[in-house]
């Protein structure tokens, strides 16, 4: 059983990993600094497979992908939030961190026992005795998530354009200006 770690609204990337701690690409170093100031007990208590739960606009602020890497390095595999800031959302999908948007996210209590069914986009809040339905990813993001990340998608198709389905409209005609 996974544990829910409850955070509030507008958790920004400086709080996920402050700028003083992201001058590295070392996974374990970034993981140790995850929420280091906002919730100093987090890294010592979190277990692999746990879930972060938050309110509005999770991940707002800078573009630093270190925020996603830091969360993944703690063993957390998914974030459930009322809404996400767009750059964080993309970064998460690109790196295989599940981002689950759910209007009832704020109702999950800190420490709640949860079961994740990522394949079906479901979260069962065992403590609260309810099942939470999450919003499906946009189609192209689903394609990326289905490959396990955007690099895998590009590797498989040679380009983003090659991975386009009907959701991308007409095929792109490259028009590189001189």
């Amino acid at each position: 059983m996974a544990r829910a770690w409850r955070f509030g609204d507008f958790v920004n990337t400086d709080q996920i990993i402050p700028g003083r701690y992201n001058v590295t690409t070392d996974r374990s170093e970034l993981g140790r600094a995850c929420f280091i100031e906002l919730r100093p007990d987090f890294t010592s208590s979190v277990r692999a497979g746990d879930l972060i739960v938050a309110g509005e606009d999770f991940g707002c602020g800078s573009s630093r992908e270190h925020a996603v890497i830091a969360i993944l390095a703690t063993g957390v595999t998914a974030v459930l939030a009322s809404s996400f800031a767009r750059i964080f959302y993309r970064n998460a999908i690109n790196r295989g961190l599940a981002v689950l948007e759910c209007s009832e996210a704020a109702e999950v209590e800190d420490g709640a026992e949860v079961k994740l069914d990522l394949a079906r986009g479901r979260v069962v809040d065992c403590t609260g005795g309810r099942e939470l339905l999450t919003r499906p990813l946009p189609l192209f993001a689903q394609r990326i998530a289905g490959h396990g990340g955007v690099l895998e998608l590009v590797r498989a198709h040679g380009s983003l354009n090659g991975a386009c389905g009907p959701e991308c409209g007409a095929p792109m005609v490259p028009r590189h200006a001189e």
Partner: protein
Amino acid sequence: MGTLAEEILSARLGRPVVAGETVVVPVDVVMSHDTTTALVAEAMDDLGRKVARPERGVVVFDHITPAATVAAAQQQQRAREFVAQQGIANLLTDGISHQVLPEHGLVAPGDVVVGADSHTVTLGAFGAFATGMGSTDVAVAYATGESWLRVPSTLAVRLEGSFPPAVEAKDLILEIVRRVGSAGARYQAVEYIGGAARELSIGDRMTLCNMAVEMGGKAGIFAADDRTLRWLEGRGSRPARVLEARDPEYLRVETVELDRLEPMVATSPRVDTGRPVSELAGMAVDQVFIGTCTNGRLADFATAAALLRGRQVAVRTVAVPASREVYLAALQAGYIESLVRAGVAVESPGCGPCLGRHKGVLGPGERAVTTMSRNFRGRMGDPSSEIYLVSPATAAATALLGRLADPREVA
């Protein structure tokens, strides 16, 4: 037919696209900086790909430059290796990316720009569609010359009238962010329209576009005009695609009358808490900082120097020009001398203390009044330190009195 964002993306794709569509779009300029390039390089190695268009790649050292720590130096070594291995044509070390890209003529109106920095939206001031992304997305843009995105719907901000004395573009954007909210334009483009928008300088337009991301925006945009073309003239930029909105359908229109604005301050730790400086005047302050991609330009230095010339600051004050070009022009105009004589620590161009890594880090409980765009708690140093966001005029007035001050008090 469409909003400026739709027009730019449609022109780039060669077919009409509308808000809500997912598109894979060719990217004209790809940028990363000293903190984000190492992750870009890792992703490129992982992909085993070369940069598709090295002449359109730009790596900028601005976040911690000159390197303040061994770790920062190592990140820069990695970035230099990446530039050399990939043959990237542009390694810039003369200021903040969003300032030096246009100075070097690397951005043209109508461009699609992707940068590994959230404030890449600043470049919308030049009539480009410019957006911030993470390092992996930027690596994909380097490798393939393309990016994917959902064509955004648009919040139009209609500007009317003209600024009263001592009121600046920063006060205007703090008012806009207050009204819209820190997530109120999420996934949207913020397009500045109206007669007063046409009258704004390029620097003011950059300030307004810069903070579109503080409302959650995907882009901030002004239509390019004669003023844009004059600014870019002689900088070697590629031919402009000058576009404007045509019969646009905006999600909503927010109108601001400039004449009714006052000097504004956004209080710690939320950017959408703007209120008149006069309501908080007299608040104790430990440090003033003038600079950043929001307000580190020549006009900002002119404003600060005009207030501080021949006087002494009453609180420690740091000023950082956004670029070497700004620095030199401010030197030649005498602004730097005025600031130095007033007791201001003028530092070399770059992001300065905005990231809390060097050149003015805050201690426990300290409070800074700054011209930055972001006031997250602890961003400039100790987690208990506070940041208040203001215009250059308010920052200079505050430096002079040693407490939060309305610039009209000291003019």
